[in-house]
């Protein structure tokens, strides 16, 4: 394609600006977390660890981290298990109501979190299950299932449809074939789904805020600081959370990339 240099550079600069816009708040938050001013402006104040020290000497933050980790791990495990079963079902079976099945599996991300939170709180309180850690786990699992399913479904797409029959053919029962063929084959996507859903859960605040009761998660603490005594502790907490989440993503990404580098020709 012929391309004059001006257009090329204009496009480059434009794209760079878009990325700057996207990363401005992330970088700013990092910078502000080390800035002594409570309301940072230019020029910046001095360097400080103060906000980290404040945030992490608050036992509430620690117990929130504990709740968050518990919730993220539990809902990641549950959502990945359920997402796996849904992806496998979609991959292998055809049955009456399959379309409805898929809609049910993929609908949750289209419902605004506030609405889902409201509905979940009302629903769970019928069973006396609101305001507990388990309520957050339940709700987060619902939100994470579609993500887990999508990731695992993509991997199953790459699986030779004869692989499972080949295992049965060699004497494996369906359960044995699942254990010794389907699971090993989809393992990278299972790990990726675990990381992804854990990260999604770890960052979710709207639903957690509604249903958490007294068991706050880290994002709920952030929300409370934001609605309450606003200060750059948010940035400190956010930065640490970011580092944690991004490590999970990088692990997932490495697994995905690894798969791209080593293509399996059937």
């Amino acid at each position, binding site marked *: 394609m012929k391309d004059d240099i001006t257009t090329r550079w204009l496009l480059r600069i434009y794209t760079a600006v878009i990325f700057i816009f996207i990363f401005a708040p992330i970088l700013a938050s990092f910078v502000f977390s080390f800035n002594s001013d409570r309301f940072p402006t230019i020029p910046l104040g001095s360097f*400080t660890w103060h906000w980290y020290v404040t945030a992490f*000497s608050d036992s509430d933050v620690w117990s929130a981290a504990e709740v968050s980790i518990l919730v993220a791990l539990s809902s990641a495990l549950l959502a990945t298990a359920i997402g796996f079963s849904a992806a496998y079902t979609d991959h292998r079976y055809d049955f009456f109501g399959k379309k409805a099945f898929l809609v049910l599996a993929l609908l949750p991300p289209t419902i605004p979190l506030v609405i889902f939170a409201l509905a979940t709180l009302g629903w769970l309180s019928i069973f006396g299950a609101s*305001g507990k850690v388990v309520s957050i786990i339940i709700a987060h699992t619902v939100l994470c299932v579609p993500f887990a399913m999508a990731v695992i479904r993509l991997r199953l797409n790459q699986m030779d449809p004869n692989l499972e029959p080949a295992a049965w053919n060699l004497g494996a029962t369906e359960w044995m074939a699942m254990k010794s063929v389907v699971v090993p084959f989809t393992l990278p996507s299972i790990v990726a789904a675990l990381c992804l859903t854990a990260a999604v859960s770890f960052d979710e605040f709207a639903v957690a805020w509604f249903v958490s009761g*007294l068991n706050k998660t880290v994002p709920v603490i952030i929300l409370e600081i934001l609605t309450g005594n606003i200060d750059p502790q948010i940035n400190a907490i956010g930065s640490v959370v970011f*580092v944690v989440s991004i490590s999970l993503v990088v692990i997932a990404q490495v697994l995905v990339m690894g798969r791209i580098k080593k293509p399996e020709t059937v």
Partner: protein
Amino acid sequence: MKKLLNVSRRDALKAGAAAVLAMPFVSRAWAQAVEINMLAWYGHGEPDMVGAFEAANNVKFKPKYYAGGDNMLALIAQSPPGTYDIILSDAEFVQQLNVAGLIEEMNAADYPFDDMIYDDFKQFPGHWKDGKLYSMMVRCGHLGVSYNTTAISEEEAKSYKCYWKPEIKGKVGHFDWHLPSLGQMSLLNGNGAKLWDVDEAGWGKIKETTMSLRPQVGGYFDYGGTFNGLKNGEMMAMAGIGDWITGVLEKDGAPVKSVVPVEGGIQWTESYSIGKGTAKADIVKKFIQYMLSPEGQAVSAQMAAYPGFAITNGGRKALNETNPKEAQRTGQMDGAPNDPVTLIKEGRIHYRDIPKQQTLEDWNDFWQEYKNA
């Protein structure tokens, strides 16, 4: 975590010290400290308020914060009974808590009623029923005109009319709760002591006055937003608040101030109640006693999230001893011209209450309409 904290040596030391200080505290909290569930306005469960008590009694407060009495009632209503061990509510909502059977009876002899700084406080409306005590007032503060001194003069701030000043169009904020803001409008309309007790015509006029302010309004904020808006100069005046917000900012060096205008001001009052069905009534009682002790009152008056007045003579004395500057700033010295007690005595302060002739819902509905206008 450790890696992050390992950059410069001095900072590392500082961080390390903090971690060392925090760790036993944290681990103890995780070990076996009795957890006390607290429902309160933002800040009441923070370390500056409860840290000393927690350390001395091996307890751990687990706070749930709300903004506004309606919000508090809603939170309680949706939790199973016995969820909250201690409830800090606005005084005007105590009655509702009591009617709904959400709070325990208290023993008046346990608390320092004799030391109250003002007689009204001993018999605060709604706190007693049939001679039984249900809630213990712990602190209060005044709401008036909160403004940025660079945009509004002291003279102008003497009336709520300053909200309509053309120069601050789009820079008047509201604390997002109907009671204080609409109360101020009622005062501006000259309802004085009957500000909560207005008939249909009076209510219509309040709505009219409020609506006329709409073009000036720059936003509706929660606690953090209010704070932020005034501090960073987004808002030049804020309706529905008082020194509880500006006091924090003033101490931080911002050019903001709160005054009680000629039309009168509103007093917010916070009281502790013991949650119905709690198994921790004894330690909660001990905590309330602590908060009413001179030491606790001084801490409460200087609460980091928002300051309030000490309500016992002992507390005022303790504040004057530990932080005379703050005592002076807030007029909590006998004989000061802005002594809150004097203001009450002069009849310039009205206790915040709930609407008498309308329901809370009516007010809330109008508030929604106003916000959406």
